[in-house]
């Protein structure tokens, strides 16, 4: 297999980035105010938290109930009701870009050096260190965000330097600029990553052929959604086009929250034109005048770049009024930035968030395609889906269908990370075997691969000849590799903590069940588990999978069920032969000892 390796340097000039972090996202819709999430972000930036008074002020400005503002502030991880530090540091806790990925607790180290407790702000207000779910830098080793800017390839040495810079309150501008560089490394390119996309080329073709023929071309291509569920894209656009409504909308889902996924980060950097053109095509077909890109808060540093491309496209008359001179075709795109909530990748939760609400999945049906943003017909598509659509219109459906398998036409872009020598982006025709990917990224002694992230499927060597595709191993693109040396129980615990943290809290099975699952796995890891816990985990997992409200709940227990099937020893080896208490008696007396200021022998149990 040919081996293409290109490194695209993105403009990560910290001076530009920092000024941008304080810049407000522009908006070009008819809405008179900036988005509620953006307004709250500005307050968070300025005052390092959002105070009750600030919430009241916002409620008045937006003519919302105070309750709605409070529930939004409390839903999103990146809004705080207590002041953060002037240096606010978020360590990823992903198994690939997390602070433990090198078996070395970098978060603990930094906290020690700075004399700060994780999750709390230091008394002088200088610094706060928190953990957060995957920040999409899995191909860059352990990473963190400091005041929203990414620092990658963390080492003990770098942590020591960071501690010094924070302690001396050195402005970020004076930190080493190369620390903030993010490289998009594509090791394998196929259809989408080899073709150059000429801005306007798809729209010009669409205007020549008309709406119906353009939609027919997408339908003929058999393009299916790249965000996970695999719904037919042409079909979705058709349903939306036919749905009655006084406005139609197209939304690009750039929430990319599944741990281990970072291909949309690369696509947004290097293929923004094709993305915006895909959205414009969709707008042309469904009759939308307004589009949104819902960008995850962790990718805020991409904003300047995206605005630059949008502005250029406006100048090229590829966006705005009378696109390409058409008297009746007006369309523009606004970027809305999330604030730390995995659930907002779920399309109906995303729509709620776009409307300035907490990201609670809606009752479905009706689906967004008929009742989406503002209850109007809305297409929600993944970044990669929209880019593929733009290319299909330029190259033709036959070009696309010639690659892939019967049920999965075209290619899939994978985000490969974990225990391999060449982490990065890999684009393959659908049908590629897992083993092929492992060979290409130089992964040796592989114990397990997590396909599609924590919500996906965990497989072992016996399944490495299986194929990536909707008919076999379906994936949104996350490809996490675990070597033989990895403790898979730690991986399961990591995933279980992730889901418990990210459950929106709406439905009982998911809200309570993910907590119970987390507690059960922690208990086993602490050496207190018995065979009964395995039975318990299985029952709980089935309940969460089958009886939850949304896709988060349906998939939250997949990893444990897969693990119990394929790697039972990971969970069973630490089990005790006999009953053991849920808790450590002596440990449970700790709070009593603290209250009574006692630590003598008789204040302990053994």
């Amino acid at each position, binding site marked *: 297999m040919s081996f293409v390796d290109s490194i695209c340097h993105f403009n990560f000039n910290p001076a530009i980035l920092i000024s941008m972090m304080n810049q407000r996202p522009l908006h070009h819709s008819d809405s008179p105010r900036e988005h509620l999430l953006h307004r709250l972000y500005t307050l968070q930036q300025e005052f390092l938290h959002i105070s009750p008074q600030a919430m009241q002020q916002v409620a008045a400005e937006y003519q919302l*109930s105070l309750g709605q503002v*409070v529930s939004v*502030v409390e839903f999103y991880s990146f809004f705080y009701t207590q002041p953060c530090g002037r240096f606010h540091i978020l360590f990823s806790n992903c198994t690939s870009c997390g602070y433990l990925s090198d078996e070395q607790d970098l978060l603990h180290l930094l906290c020690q050096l700075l004399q700060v407790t994780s999750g709390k702000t230091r008394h002088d207000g200088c610094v706060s260190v928190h953990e957060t779910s995957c920040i999409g830098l899995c191909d860059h080793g352990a990473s963190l965000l400091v005041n929203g800017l990414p620092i990658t390839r963390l080492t003990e040495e770098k942590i020591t330097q960071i501690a010094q810079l924070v302690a001396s309150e050195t402005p970020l501008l004076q930190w080493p600029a190369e620390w903030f560089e993010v490289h998009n490394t594509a090791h394998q390119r196929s259809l989408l990553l080899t073709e150059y996309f000429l801005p306007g080329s798809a729209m010009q073709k669409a205007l020549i052929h008309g709406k119906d023929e353009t939609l027919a071309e997408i339908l003929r291509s058999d393009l299916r959604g790249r965000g996970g569920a695999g719904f037919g894209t042409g079909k979705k656009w058709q349903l939306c086009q036919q749905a009655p409504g006084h406005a139609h909308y197209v939304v690009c889902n750039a929430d990319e929250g599944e741990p281990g996924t970072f291909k949309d980060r690369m696509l947004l950097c290097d293929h923004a034109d094709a993305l915006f053109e895909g959205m414009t095509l969709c707008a042309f077909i469904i009759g939308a005048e307004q589009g949104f890109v819902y960008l995850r808060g962790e990718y805020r540093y991409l904003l300047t770049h995206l605005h630059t491309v949008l502005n250029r496209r406006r100048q090229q008359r590829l966006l705005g009024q009378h696109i390409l001179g058409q008297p009746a075709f007006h369309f523009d795109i606004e970027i809305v930035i999330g604030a730390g909530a995995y659930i907002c990748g779920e399309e109906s939760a995303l729509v709620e968030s776009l409307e300035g609400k*907490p990201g609670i999945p809606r009752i479905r049906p009706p689906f967004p395609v008929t009742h989406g943003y503002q209850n109007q017909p809305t297409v929600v598509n993944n970044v990669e889906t929209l880019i593929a659509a733009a290319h299909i219109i330029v190259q033709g459906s036959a070009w696309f269908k010639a690659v892939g398998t019967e049920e999965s036409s075209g290619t899939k872009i994978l985000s490969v990370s974990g225990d391999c020598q060449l982490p990065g982006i890999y684009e393959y025709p659908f049908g590629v075997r897992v083993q092929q990917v492992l060979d290409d990224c130089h992964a040796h002694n592989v114990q397990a691969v997590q396909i599609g992230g924590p919500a996906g499927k965990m497989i072992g060597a016996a399944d490495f000849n299986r194929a990536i595709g909707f008919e076999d191993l379906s994936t949104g693109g996350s490809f996490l590799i675990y070597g033989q040396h990895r403790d898979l129980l730690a991986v399961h615990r990591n995933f279980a903590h992730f889901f418990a943290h*990210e459950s929106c809290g*709406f439905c009982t099975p998911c809200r*309570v*069940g993910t907590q119970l699952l987390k507690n059960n796995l922690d208990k086993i890891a602490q050496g207190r588990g018995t065979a009964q816990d395995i039975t318990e985990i299985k029952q709980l997992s089935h*309940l969460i999978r089958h009886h*939850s409200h949304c896709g988060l709940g349906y998939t939250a227990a997949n990893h444990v069920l897969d693990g119990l099937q394929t790697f039972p020893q990971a969970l069973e080896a630490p089990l005790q032969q006999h009953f053991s208490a849920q808790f450590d008696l002596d440990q449970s007396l700790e709070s009593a000892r603290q209250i009574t200021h006692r630590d003598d022998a008789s204040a302990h149990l053994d």
Partner: protein
Amino acid sequence: MAMQAKPNTISIDGQEIAFTAGQTIMDAALAAKIYIPHLCHYPGLRPSGNCRLCVVEISNRSTAACITPAVTGQEIRNNTPELNAIRKTITQMLFVEGNHICPSCEKTGNCKLQAMGYYLGMLDDHFPQFYQRREMDASHAGILLDRSRCILCDLCVRASREVDEKNVFAIAGRGTDAHLIVNSSTGKLGDSTIAVTDLAANICPVGAILIKEQGYQVPIGQRIYDLHTIRETALQENVTKEHHEK
């Protein structure tokens, strides 16, 4: 096997019932006096789908009856040992998530969570308690809010918005941090517009929202679920009826 389905008819555990356009499975079932266990549903308020007590199965797929539209020909499984076992587990989840010390709670005997436990044969909590810290609010002269007992069913939120037209409550926070908030400048019930006669003050299925100075008027032993099952009472409920009786 399945015969040609009659139009506008669904079957629940083999019993055929009619439905009208726009009804959910729950609506149709209640109209036909078939009990599907539920806690967060109240006829007359918009359905929510959060508690999941009403899970039923259609072709082996689970769905919440209160938010699933009735569609001609659906063959629904409801009162089965498997589903009741799931419902019992969900009830246990709600118990351990909050702090429910029934013997010291004024709602005991009138509480739907308890009643659901009785109905489903729940004999223990099964899961370890969460012991979460939840705030109590006694600021209102006539109403007590004890969040320790809140099961996040959202009924008070909807009742206040849809019937009282006041919007006194909302749910904030994510995951198990989710909690009921009061929509007033201080976040206290005493500074809100809620009145003792509001539906929102009376609809709470558990002892989270209690009317003050009415404690123990009905002695324990003669309370609602001492005399009836939740199945019996649930088939009688309706917002408009209750509210206009006041």
